[in-house]
């Protein structure tokens, strides 16, 4: 448990989440309809991730 995590292990999830959020922020700006739907899905990702880790039972 004291093993240090690699940079990749630390950052993979945050980086993916940030890229997905950025895609969501941009897509609704570029178009309507399906672009809006993608934006809703993408920006739901950070909310769902937080919900998951906050609500899951103690490890």
């Amino acid at each position: 448990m004291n093993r240090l995590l690699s940079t990749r292990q630390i950052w993979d999830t945050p980086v993916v989440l940030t890229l997905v959020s950025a895609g969501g922020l941009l897509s609704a700006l570029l178009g309507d309809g399906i672009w809006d739907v993608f934006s809703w899905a993408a920006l739901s990702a950070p909310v769902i991730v937080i919900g998951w880790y906050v609500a899951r039972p103690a490890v």
Partner: protein
Amino acid sequence: MLKRLFAAKGMGAPCRPPSFESRESAMPTSGTFKTWYLVHKWTSLVCTVFLLLLCLTGLPLIFGEEIDHLLGDRVDPPDMPGFASSRTPMASLDGMVEAAKARRPDEFIRSVSQPRDMPDAWNVSMGLIPVAMESSARLTFDARTGELLLDRNLQQGVMYVITRLHVDLFTGPAGTLRGLAGMLFLGSMGLSFVVSIVSGAVVYGPYMRKLPFGTVRRERAPRLKWLDLHNLLGIVVVGWALVVGVTGVINTLARPMFSYWQSTELAAMTAPWRGKPAPTTFASLDRAVQAARAAEPTLKVATVVFPGQKNAGNHHFMVFMRGNTPLTLRLIKPVLIDAQTGEFTDKRDMPWYVTALRVSQPLHFGDYGGMPLQILWAVLDLITIVLLGSGLYLWWQKRQTSMELLWAEADPNHNVVLSATQRMAPR
């Protein structure tokens, strides 16, 4: 369970301070870390109170239009089945202006504009003085029938108070130096927030060297639980918060930017007429709008600024036109129409800095992707409030936290003594 056993076994002699081993194994280039940690701490402390205010006032503003509807401060034109707005001749704009003047004879017409989301309505904005910086009233007319739908006093009501708190803290009226100072002050708080986000992300990395993503040590001391939550919330909303923060800062520069545009390019458009006597007779507004549409057939009229008002000069209608796509909807192109003859005079493209400002605005407001996006905006705003609150709590809890203790907290085995005794207690 295995993990817990392992953690309990690995705790070694209970009297040894947990910081001891973590200092050796987990503290990387501590000088750099310490610097970023202090940057995060101080930029956060500087802006947190104001950011809490901005987040709280921003929450109702996300739903500003819906709230205006509920309060009766906004009325949609009624549905008229079979009415094709592109074909049927529209009601006269001159008629609407006359009706507005008749209702408010002591006020002055500032502009006539078509709301982005209400193609069947026109707003006539009035000012209390001949050249007002802010509209005192807005009259909404049905674009098809010319019927008055709503006559609304501006600069009052709960949403106005919330907006001003969010924009300039009531330091002064719009267009005054004090109002600008308030905006720029909040802008500097936003800048501090942006630095705090970046430095927070920098310290997140070294801090999480022993904790898998999403770890929330809820069975440990409240401080550790909130530290983990602060890290989790912060790193997950970092992208959104950065975008809303940066675009918010850009928005505080809106007035200086518009003023600059006005004093350079817009002023250059009307410069040949400066000093000449103002016209006494005016062309029909409908005719002026037609001329603008003819000059830019692919664009739609957004706002017509009246002669004598800021931007327009004394001799012209300044017609700002916009595109149809979600992106070009925000871009405005000035088209100058002679106020006396109603003829097209000149047109320009927006300068890059106004384009940047206009495109960044929706990214701050979250009003560009329908109600689901607004709701997500509100949820992310609430998460940011918890983030700010937890940061404040963590600072308040241990104002004298040493770097060693800080590193100990980054270690999953921290507080094993405490949690081991907790575990021994009967369940």
